[in-house]
């Protein structure tokens, strides 16, 4: 991990995911008492931006590019949503192995 690269976001190995585009449904296989979570619109796009290589700022920059806006405009909402995904254990924060 370098100063320019924070922990990366990675989809949990314990989730099942169906759907594509603007609608994605996610199920935590370790918490089957919880209902499946449907992500639509920008939530689905944030999910798709989580590729196991991008850190928070890179996810934000990627989405800003995709939506033709600035990182500053969307950073707050994206950070909150990423935090929720981590809290729900649907996404892991991982240190990227370099080299």
């Amino acid at each position: 991990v370098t100063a320019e690269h924070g922990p990366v976001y990675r989809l949990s190995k314990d989730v099942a995911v169906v759907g594509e585009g603007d609608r994605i449904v996610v199920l935590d296989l370790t918490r089957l008492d919880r209902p499946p979570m449907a992500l639509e619109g920008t939530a689905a796009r944030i999910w798709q931006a989580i590729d196991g290589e991008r850190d928070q700022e890179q996810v934000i920059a990627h989405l800003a590019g995709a939506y033709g806006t600035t990182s500053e405009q969307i950073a707050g909402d994206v950070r909150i949503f990423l935090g929720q995904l981590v809290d729900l254990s649907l996404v892991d924060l991982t240190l990227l192995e370099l080299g």
Partner: protein
Amino acid sequence: VLNAQLLRVPRGSQDVDVLVDPTGFDAMIDELSAIGWYPYFQAPTAMQWMPAHAVSLKHAAWPCALDVHRFFPGCLAPPQQVFDELWVRRSSVRLGGRDVPCPDVAGSAVVAGLHGLRAPDSWREKAELVYLTSELGRRLDEAERADLAALASRMGARDTLGPMLEALGVAPEPASTGPEAQGSADALADWHLRRASGRYPTLMRLEEVRRTSWRRVPGVLWHALLLTEDEIRYTTPDMPAGRWGLARGRLKRIRRVLPQIPGAALYLAKNRGAR
């Protein structure tokens, strides 16, 4: 799974069918109940002489139903044997980004073939059976067809799957001659009854009456004609609420059922001897 294995024309499903190891069936239902799945009333088909092959479950947060199977209709071998046969040669499909265990192509072919054969009067089942047979005919070589026939035989589907195996040009496995043969003959006769019930809707009820001791006949007949309120409201969803609506629904049922009885009785007379 059938979509992924290219064994049927791709379509969405409103329910998920799972076959459970019979030794773990009750535990599985308990586990599912604990996380919110509940049994829902389906069609009034419960007959004492024909055990339910599955429990249908729903969940408030899920848009699909879950059919948890004890066995598959048409597999006449003991349920544990059928499960073990499918499990030992299981395959997997990628669903939701996960590897999900499922029957291999031959196992799926037996299950899907029986599903198509159990309702010969349904255009959809018929069309799916034609598609399945043609797909298997195109894909399976001689050894794979023989393997399919042998698997069907071990699952007790040698005869029930016969029409599909015949269409594939597979030589039938030798028939069983052991002490279980009579039990198989009875189970096979029940299978044919189930198949004919699409054409004769009162057939299963009549068979229930036929199998009932004479003391219980009036009660069974009464139920067969009038059904319980839940059952009749399921079969007649547009029935008005209240007692008057119920009475009208039952009258409507009697008018519908009575003319169907002679045909069903004739079928039974021709196809079932006295038990």
